[in-house]
C-alpha cells in the first residue's frame, strides 16, 4: 500500500520540526517528546482526514498545537486546584531540556501567553507564512500578525538585559539590572 508508506515517510520527515515546535511551546524536552508521540498516534489514526495535496506539515502542527492547548488547560486547572499557583511549578528550562545556551530565551518564551508564543514560533522559527500560521491556529491573519508583534515586543522587554549593546548607546536598558 504505497499511500501508507508515503504517509509514514512524510510523518517521519516532520518529526524534527514537530519536536522543535513542541519544546518551544512547553519548555520541557520529555513533555515535548510525549506531545510529538501523541501527535503521530492521532495523525495515524485520522489519516483519512488529511486532504492529499495539502500541506502535511501544517496538518501535523495543527494536531500538535490543539493537543498542547487541551493539555495546557487541563494541567493549569490541576495545578491551580492544588495550590493556586502555576509559575512556581516551572523549573528552570535548562534543567529540563539540557540546552543551556538558550536557557534565557526558553524561559522568556514561557512567560508569553500561549497564543503569542505559538504565533511567534510558527512565524519566526518554523518558517510558516502568516496565512499558514493563521490556518494552524484557526484565527484571522491579522490576529496572528498582532500576536507576533506583541510577542516580539514582550520578548525584547524580557531579554533586554541579556541583549544590551554598548552601555553608552542604551543607558535605559541598564536600569533593570540595578534593580
Amino acid at each position: 500500500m504505497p499511500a501508507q508508506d508515503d504517509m509514514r515517510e512524510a510523518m517521519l520527515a516532520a518529526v524534527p520540526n514537530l519536536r522543535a515546535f513542541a519544546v518551544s511551546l512547553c519548555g520541557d524536552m520529555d513533555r515535548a517528546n510525549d506531545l510529538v508521540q501523541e501527535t503521530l498516534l492521532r495523525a495515524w489514526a485520522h489519516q483519512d482526514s488529511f486532504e492529499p495535496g495539502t500541506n502535511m506539515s501544517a496538518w501535523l502542527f495543527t494536531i500538535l498545537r490543539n493537543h498542547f492547548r487541551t493539555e495546557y488547560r487541563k494541567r493549569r486547572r490541576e495545578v491551580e486546584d492544588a495550590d493556586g499557583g502555576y509559575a512556581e511549578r516551572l523549573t528552570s528550562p535548562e534543567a529540563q531540556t539540557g540546552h543551556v545556551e538558550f536557557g534565557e530565551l526558553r524561559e522568556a518564551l514561557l512567560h508569553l501567553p500561549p497564543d503569542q508564543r505559538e504565533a511567534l514560533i510558527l512565524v519566526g522559527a518554523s518558517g510558516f507564512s502568516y496565512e499558514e500560521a493563521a490556518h494552524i491556529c484557526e484565527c484571522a491573519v491579522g490576529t496572528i500578525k498582532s500576536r507576533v508583534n506583541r510577542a516580539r515586543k514582550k520578548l525584547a522587554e524580557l531579554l533586554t538585559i541579556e541583549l544590551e549593546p554598548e552601555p553608552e548607546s542604551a543607558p535605559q536598558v541598564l536600569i533593570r539590572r540595578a534593580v
Partner: protein
Amino acid sequence: MPQTERLEESPKRLSRDIQRKIGQQLRAMYTDVVNEGVPDRFADLLRRLDDKNK
C-alpha cells in the same frame, strides 16, 4: 544637526537590533532541536503502526 538626528534615531535602531538578535536566537534555538533528527522511539513507533496496518 547630526547629533540631534542621532538621538532621535537611536531608540528605533536599538529596538531593530534587539529584534534582529531575538529572531536569530529563536531560529538558532529551534534549529538546534531540528538538527537532533528523528529519535529512535519515533521511527520505531511509526514502523509498528505501519506493520499493524499491513
